[in-house]
């Protein structure tokens, strides 16, 4: 039987006394499009934020290719996160920065690229916009 790409097992998430996710079980398979539908405030964003690691469950576990995310080592965790893209509801762009600075930010902060290298990469990305 195929191992799910992402699996939620009895995941519960509470914010103070409010339970947003209550023992959720979910399986997401590779090469399939999975849609999560629900009313406003039903916990869709909270569920997605668990997948990208912005939130961690109070109970239960999240598995990536059968391996619990909470037990991943730092290298595995970074590799897992690098495979996931997430589009925020309001884009979450840095509105105090220019388009160039927005694209350059992760390059400046997470790579050792020099100014010229960053400029070249950013301009090549801007051409795709």
């Amino acid at each position, binding site marked *: 039987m195929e191992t799910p790409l992402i699996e939620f097992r009895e995941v519960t998430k509470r*914010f*103070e006394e409010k339970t947003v996710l209550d023992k959720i079980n979910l399986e997401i398979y590779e090469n399939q499009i999975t849609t999560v539908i629900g009313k406003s405030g039903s916990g869709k964003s909270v569920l997605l*934020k668990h997948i*990208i*690691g*912005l939130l961690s469950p109070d109970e239960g576990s999240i598995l990536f290719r059968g391996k619990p995310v909470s037990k991943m080592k730092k290298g595995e965790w*970074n590799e897992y*996160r*690098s495979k*996931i893209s*997430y589009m*925020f*509801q*309001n884009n*979450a*762009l*840095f*509105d105090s920065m220019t388009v160039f600075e927005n694209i350059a*930010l*992760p390059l*400046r*902060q*997470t790579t050792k690229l020099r100014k010229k290298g960053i400029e070249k990469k950013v301009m090549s990305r801007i051409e795709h916009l």
Partner: protein
Amino acid sequence: MRKRPKDDKLLINMRPTTNEISSLPFFHFIGKRTLYIINNLGAVAIFFTLAFLKIFRPRQLKEIIQQVFYIGARSSNIVMLVGLFTGMVLGLQLFYTLTKFGSAGVLGSVVALTLIRELGPVLTAIMITARAGSAMTAEIGILRISEQIDALYTMRIDPLRYLISPRIAAAIISFPLLTAFFDLVGILGGYVTGVLLLGVDKGAYFYRIRAYVEMADISGGFIKSLVFAGLVSTICCYQGYFAHLLSDSHGAKSVSLATTAAVVFSCVMILVSDYVVTSFLM
């Protein structure tokens, strides 16, 4: 009374029932508030420690310099203006008080000691809280509610390192410098009222300052300003960073509440810690 279950795992069942809680509302309230305060104090301490350690990571210098410009350089005008008038009013008030005792000649030393030991660090910290601290909370709070902090995380940029550490470092650099400006301008303010307006001898004013102000007074003032820097920057950043977790509001309102809480809490903590640090330094 209910019997205690043998199995430790069942201790959860020892929680008071709703009826028991309603019969002891006062103790329930006190206990809940105490746990909340202890929990928050622990969270603030961890927040500060993590952010402080990340000051020394690579690629921080540029961000720290930017924040020093914003927190320090841009606050200098208002700090010096307040320092000037504080010194002037001190000169005015102390002149009349000291004249009653026939000691108007010591005006310079009294103004200088009051400013260096007490008013300089405290008023500078309160002014920076009002100007830069509130802005810190609002900016970080808006970044939080618009999910920009979450976006940093998804880009593998540590928000604590990128947003909080430079602000704490900049506060630690800026507070003592601005306090020194405040003290200096305040002493000149005292000179304006004491010497130029009320006729105290110019030589006596500066001679008494040199004679009575010791290095321990100056270092004590700087120790206070460092403590205030840590407190104000941590409280303001913490309130903004966790603005989304406020239970009684969300969105823009949570940012406004967080900003108000940051300013009020910072000012209270400045005064409380001032007493504690002074009692240690005496």
